[in-house]
């Protein structure tokens, strides 16, 4: 049981680190927007996992608000990104 919880936490940590690598490296701003979206959904998954492991319901409103508001980040980046950015791909 405890081993399974540690494996879950390790997998989440590795996933977040790998997404952070793409945010740091990512050549264009759209790559960073996609990676930030992935990282946000991973934050939602971690909040839900913590709630399921510890048997409480305090994170539920946070989950709902992130699900409702999180989409506006990448939409506004995609809306206002320049037609041509100069960074080489």
């Amino acid at each position, binding site marked *: *049981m405890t081993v399974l919880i540690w494996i879950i936490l390790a997998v989440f940590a590795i996933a977040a680190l790998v997404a952070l690598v793409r945010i740091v490296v990512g050549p264009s701003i759209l790559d960073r927007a996609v990676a930030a979206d992935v990282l946000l959904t991973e934050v939602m998954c971690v909040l*839900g996992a913590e709630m399921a*492991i510890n048997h409480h319901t305090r994170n539920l409103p946070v989950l709902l608000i992130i699900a409702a508001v999180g989409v506006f980040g990448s939409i506004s*980046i995609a809306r206002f990104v320049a*037609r041509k950015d100069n960074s080489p791909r």
Partner: protein
Amino acid sequence: MNLDTVLDTVSLVLLLIGALLCLIASIGLVRLRDVPTRLHAATKPQVLGLILVCLAIALSLRSWPVVAFLVPVVLIQLATAPLSAHMVGRAAYRNGTLDEQSLVADELRDAQETPPASGD
């Protein structure tokens, strides 16, 4: 081995599968080539992982109000993930950040070349 232990174990296994799907999305984000392919890796496993995590929460807490709270979370995520993916993909097409050689079909360019109401 009563019912509570079984349900808790099932919820932990669902959490593990959800975490692995998050990991798959991140690996695809790093391994793939340009913005549309990374978008392909980013949107689909993420939503499935979130659905599995919500199922694990419902199995772990075992109360109907929690389920009623989780249903809109999943529905909002299912509704907004294609929206943002569409916007980012379109911006990537106009930005020139996608690999033109790798496209098999380019229906957006065909639609832009053909004038509307040309009967084609």
